[in-house]
């Protein structure tokens, strides 16, 4: 096992990793920007080092400072968290060139998972269902038009390097495709410095279902009960739950086995997530996220397995001790991401004058915030993840409603009311929803 791990991230996921390391008796070194220096969670690591000024480009994305910090603090491994450098294959490679274990899959696997068109092409060849569409990058609008005619409208144009809805366009008829293609290309170029686009069939009202997997270096892969992340706004997940109320055990098993096949195909050797679009009983592979995810606690509660500790153990070369049969659905879990947002759902910075968090039975809170902390304009505006669980879906939802009532936040506005609206929505309560849910709710 590692002796000392550098936690190359900030906020709640940094604290999540620090907690896991502490529970494994592994020393932790937090890194922080100048803006985070006084944050409570930094003091919970064994050591903390400032790596640069507030802007992420100069601190949390500054590879040389992070590597230098790991070296001078004599760490033997680096945990990248999510976001920032977590899916940067170069960073993973640089870590290993300096003798630091990167807690995640290999640089090659990260690179492959990051090239959406390539991985889709790869899994398609293995007869894993994917959304019909282009093989790789589409050269121009004319080619896009030809493909669209083949797979039939509606189609969706996506950036190969994309994420978060940037460089994405839904096209419902041939007359709109040229303009949409140009716009998406420009947007992708601006956001990712890569204007590569691909075109695929647009699946109407699908569910976003993802499967957590864990794989060791000997090629053993297991899957966990799915998370339903269909409740999204502008392609950003808002509320997640597991298991999905819309997936039967037959489909669950099919999705799980498919996810394991994908992980094996790309030599995955860590915890990771395979995302699917599900429409009725059909499912389509979308992508693989080569990192721990924001919503991982849902799975931790459902299965009572600590994914971050498992991730660290796998990176240290331990074999997966779990058999597939050991992974059970013990309970139902729901997660709400509490963000600092104004009434237009725009992230807003400010001081948390007061923060009282919920507690009691069936409530888990993951946050790096305390009363008096700053929501910095330099970073994302998530205040806390509230995760509840119960013996069944109703208990988990009732607990979430109860927990949200207990939160007191002063100084910033939040999206708690949106969550409350979702939790009381009749279709949500029935478990009938798709990615259109929030749009339709208004």
């Amino acid at each position, binding site marked *: 096992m590692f002796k000392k791990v550098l936690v190359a991230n900030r906020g709640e996921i940094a604290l999540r990793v620090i907690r896991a390391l502490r529970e494994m008796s592994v020393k932790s070194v937090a890194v922080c920007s100048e803006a985070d220096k006084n944050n409570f969670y930094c003091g919970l690591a064994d050591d903390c080092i*400032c790596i640069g000024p507030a802007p992420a480009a100069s601190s949390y994305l*500054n590879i*040389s400072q992070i*590597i*230098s910090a790991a070296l001078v603090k004599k760490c033997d491994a680096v945990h990248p968290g999510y976001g920032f450098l977590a899916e940067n294959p170069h960073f993973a490679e640089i870590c290993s060139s300096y003798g630091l274990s990167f807690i995640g899959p290999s640089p090659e696997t990260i690179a492959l998972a990051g090239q959406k068109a390539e991985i889709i092409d790869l899994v398609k060849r293995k007869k894993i269902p994917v959304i019909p569409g282009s093989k790789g990058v589409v050269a121009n609008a004319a080619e896009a038009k030809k493909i669209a005619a083949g797979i039939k409208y509606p189609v969706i144009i996506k950036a190969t390097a994309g994420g978060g809805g940037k460089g994405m366009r839904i096209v419902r008829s041939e007359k709109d495709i040229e303009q949409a293609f140009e716009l998406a290309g420009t947007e992708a170029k601006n956001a990712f410095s890569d204007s590569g686009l691909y075109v695929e069939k647009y699946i109407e009202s699908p569910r976003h279902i993802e499967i957590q997997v864990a794989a060791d270096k000997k090629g053993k892969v297991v899957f966990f009960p799915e998370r339903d992340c269909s409740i999204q706004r502008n392609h950003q997940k808002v509320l997640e739950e597991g298991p999905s109320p819309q997936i039967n055990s037959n489909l669950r098993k099919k999705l799980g086995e498919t996810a394991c096949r994908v992980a094996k195909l790309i030599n995955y050797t860590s915890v990771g997530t395979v995302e699917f679009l599900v429409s009725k009983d059909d499912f389509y592979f979308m992508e693989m996220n080569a990192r721990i995810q924001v919503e991982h606690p849902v799975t931790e509660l459902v299965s009572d397995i600590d994914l971050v500790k498992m991730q660290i153990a796998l990176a240290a070369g331990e074999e997966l001790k779990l058999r597939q049969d050991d992974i059970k659905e013990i309970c139902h879990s729901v997660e709400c991401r509490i963000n600092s947002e104004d009434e237009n759902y725009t992230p807003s910075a400010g001081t948390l004058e007061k923060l009282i968090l919920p507690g009691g039975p069936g409530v888990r809170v993951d946050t790096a915030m305390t009363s008096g902390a700053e929501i910095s304009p330099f970073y994302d505006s998530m205040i806390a993840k509230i995760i509840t669980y119960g013996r069944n879906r109703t208990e988990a939802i009732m607990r979430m409603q109860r927990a949200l009532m207990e939160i007191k936040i002063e100084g910033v506005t939040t999206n708690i009311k949106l969550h409350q609206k979702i939790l009381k929505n009749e279709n949500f309560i029935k478990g009938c929803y798709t990615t259109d849910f929030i749009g339709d709710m208004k």
Partner: protein
Amino acid sequence: MVKKQLQKKKPAARPKPEPAAASAADLDLKKIMEVLGKTDVCEFEYSRGDMHIVLKKEPVSVILGETETAQTESGPAEKNLPVLDEKACAQTCVKTLKSPAVGIFHISDGNTLIASVGKKIKKGQRIGWVNSMGINQEIMAEKNSKITAILCKDREVVEWGQKLFEIEENNV
């Protein structure tokens, strides 16, 4: 409605609205107290409606002008210049030279110390360096100066922004 006397202001890492001014319309006394405690503001007087407040601290002997650490803003690592806190005054200027990188601080060339307290140094003269991933980032003064304090030990691990030297710049 607000009357304030800010005789000096600590350089801020990134510009922020000055707290007292920002909350003038809805004066938060607690915040003012905190600001008073943390900054070098010496006197604060406030009147509104039925309220009148005077807060004073004895001014410190050296009166310093208002400056900004432009280095922090423009990314010191790239420019390979030390981060510094500048306090301007009439004849001499006290500056703190900070580490531009995470690394190991060096102040000796082999066995010889290249800097010591009281030593006069010339503009651009190297007085130490931080080795960050094998690259030496030199610490030097921008003007002729005198070293008034050395704040880290030779071969000490330093973080970004850590205070390394205090120097007195000669402005005449």
